[in-house]
């Protein structure tokens, strides 16, 4: 053991004690009590992931990369325990209600009736969300195959090998590229079209129906229809391109083009949704504001940028979150029908696609679980960044 568990616990205790003492002081409690609670919480946190792992990352024969991962797990454990404890003690010390908008009037008398009412939801959540989450964590430290004679514990190898795997780094970068392209293209085109479609033109309602329906198509169907049109040998698009421009593109078999076919299909499918919401958002922009701008003589773009765009920010924020989720997870079906196997040079293999390829087709569940955790952290990280930068001023009054 290079770093002893006791040292890690002391480290956790110090961090926790400092954090809690600070919280207690600010909330008017006794810092000394905070110090005590924090020390216990921090020590516990440091062991949260390490006890199940049996401190394997700090064994002498392990590489330094493993130790780095070990430290990350220790810090994550400390954060996971200390943060809720400080939040909770802050609230308690300030005597704030733990549920801000809790109803006090009109409640029923026998409180235990709530239990059977909550039981179905809680049972399902525990069995099909909480338990699989823990199981994913456990699997990520294993070599595991369905139907195999045994499982083998491999510490954090499933993670460290990702860092050293250029193919995985590629997959990560490509996932970002494909996802952001889908979100940016789909949303900007949708805004452009919505800013025309919300006008009181003749036939506006017909336009709107003709524009929004693709949302209800499934990602799988989007893949199938684009396969019909874009398949390189015998697809309509290449036939027309050949006839008109004399070129044929490898829509599905050229690694430089294939991701764009996926992006195109996904944009086509997701635009209806974005247009629908942008039309609603634009209709909510007070008309006198636009009029005022017009009288001021502000140019078209300036008016849009200074008046309309800020008013749309709640919708934009909401759409970014939903579109990102779509781009990360739901494009799986589109990819699976358009470029089964993940495309030439893995050019359409997203992180989600890779997880399924590894876990289901290659029956390599441990590595697949580790990759799902990376995917999970990526999505959570991006959501947190979004909320920090844009989500604060947003009010959900769409």
């Amino acid at each position: 053991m290079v770093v002893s568990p006791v040292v890690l616990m002391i480290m956790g205790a110090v961090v926790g004690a400092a954090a809690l003492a600070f919280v207690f002081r600010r909330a008017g409690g006794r810092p000394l009590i905070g110090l005590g609670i924090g020390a216990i919480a921090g020590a516990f946190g440091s062991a949260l992931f390490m006890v199940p792992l049996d401190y394997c990352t700090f064994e002498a024969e392990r590489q330094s990369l493993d130790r780095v991962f070990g430290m990350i797990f220790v810090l994550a454990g400390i954060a996971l325990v200390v943060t809720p404890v400080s939040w909770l003690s802050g609230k308690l010390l300030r005597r704030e209600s733990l549920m801000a908008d809790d109803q006090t009037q009109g409640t029923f008398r026998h409180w235990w009736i709530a239990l059977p009412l909550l039981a179905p939801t809680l049972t399902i959540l525990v069995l099909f969300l909480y338990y699989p989450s823990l199981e994913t964590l456990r699997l990520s430290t294993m070599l595991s195959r369905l139907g195999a004679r045994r499982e083998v514990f491999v510490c954090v190898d499933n993670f460290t090998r990702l860092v050293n795997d250029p193919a995985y780094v590629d997959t990560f970068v490509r996932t970002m590229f494909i996802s952001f392209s889908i979100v940016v293209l789909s949303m900007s085109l949708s805004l452009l079209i919505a800013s025309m479609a919300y006008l009181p033109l003749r036939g506006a309602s017909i336009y709107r129906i003709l524009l929004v329906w693709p949302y209800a198509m499934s990602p799988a169907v989007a893949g199938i229809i684009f396969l019909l049109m874009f398949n390189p040998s015998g697809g309509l698009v290449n036939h027309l391109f050949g006839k008109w421009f004399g070129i044929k593109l490898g829509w599905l078999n050229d690694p430089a083009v294939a991701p764009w076919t996926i992006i195109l299909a996904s944009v086509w499918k997701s635009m209806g949704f974005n247009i629908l919401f942008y039309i609603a958002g634009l209709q909510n922009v007070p008309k006198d504001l636009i009029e005022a701008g017009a009288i001021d003589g502000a140019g078209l773009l300036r008016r849009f940028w200074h008046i309309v765009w800020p008013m749309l920010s709640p919708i934009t924020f909401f759409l970014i979150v939903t579109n990102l989720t779509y781009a990360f997870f739901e494009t799986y079906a589109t990819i699976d029908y358009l470029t089964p196997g993940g495309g030439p040079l893995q050019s359409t293999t997203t992180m989600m696609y890779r997880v399924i390829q590894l876990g289901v087709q290659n029956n390599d569940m441990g590595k697949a679980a580790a990759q799902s955790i990376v995917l999970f952290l990526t999505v959570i990280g991006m959501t947190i960044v979004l909320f920090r930068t844009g989500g604060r001023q947003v009010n959900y009054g769409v």
Partner: protein
Amino acid sequence: MKKLVFLSIALVMVIALALPASPISAQEKTKIDVWIAFQDYRWDWAKAVAAEFNEMFPQYEVVVTGGYSYETMFAQVAVAAEQGQLPAVVQYFEAATQDARDSGLFKPIADALGDRTEINGLTVDMEDYVAPVIAYYTLDGKFTSMPWNTSSAITFTNMNYLRAAGWDKPPATWQEIDAACEAVMALDKAPEYCWTFPNHGWFFEQWMAVQNALYVNNGNGREERATEVAFNSDAGVALLEWLDDQYNKGYLYYSGAQGGDSWSTVDQAYSTQQIAIAVYSSSDTTLYTEMGEEGGFESVASFYPYNGEVGWTGNLIGGATLWLVDGLDPAVEEGALTFLVYFTNTENAADWHKVTGYIPIRMSAYQMLTEEGYYEANPNQTVALEQLAQSTITPATSGALVGGFPSIRNVVTAAIDRVLLTDADPAEVLAQAAAESNVIIEEYNLLNAP
């Protein structure tokens, strides 16, 4: 508005429910579940034979369940095995042989049959099954699984293009393909590309066997458990260099699809005459011959192209066999065995061969069809069987036995993909693929070896 929607939803549900549902039968019969990996006309064929069988043997009820592909069947069996929910018979493809063997789930056909020559009134004649197939599936000296759909890889040529280019027979070697393609691509009405093959691991394996090169160590895993791949040899590099050259010259069409999904892309290119030559599985000989008839061109089958500088040793078999699950109720096992014998009797073997193009697995079926004059009318159908019959049996041409084979195939097809689409050096790519495959084998053996 809302009412309208609910009405239409209700209507859809009524229509959906009114459509014919699959028949459900529940009787006091010995139920024999058979899982196969097909969901197309081959499944339909198997179900039809099972129906005949059920009529002939009212005490049994064979239920044939289809699956999407060999690869998913493999996963499905692993899942079923974990809970002891296995059917009586499972169709496993050749790449799953080692996994099936390690799983300990199956009973060799030889053990189940014993020395019986008759079962439920059906004659059993193991001598009548084709030799290379028996050789492939004889493990530890025991005949293990019942052959059903056995194929080899062969070449289909659109002779209209070749004749126009001055060739009156299909090219036989890599070098001839190169020469023929040069001529074909120089035609006024040249196809878009000259030739293609599905980027499925099996074709790489065929090309290794043809050069008498091993795929994995320890005599292709037949002397001892394979621990490393051997395909990163000169033979492997030569193959990738040739493919790369063909691709760079614009002769080779690559659809970008890999593994099980690559087949249909070749079908499409060949049937629409966008290519002149398709290297493909003999399993679809019937279909590929028909494509020519429908598209108005002469579609000729020939042997698998080999490296003219090295010569031809022999080809592998492919396809799948039917495995009998171990530990069945004796009545079920008896029924399953009876079905396997019936399923592969002379008439069924002949019919299956004619419908698909898989080789006739019974010599008697081959003789019967020869006497009928079937092969005179259908010369393409003999190619695969002749190719296998002329093959020299060596460890290389017996086919590899290795754990995690399906995953290794994915690594190999990805390597071919990289060689074709980038400037990467074939030898380096292959070395890297070998390293990746070795990890797979090592981990497989760690988890699965008894």
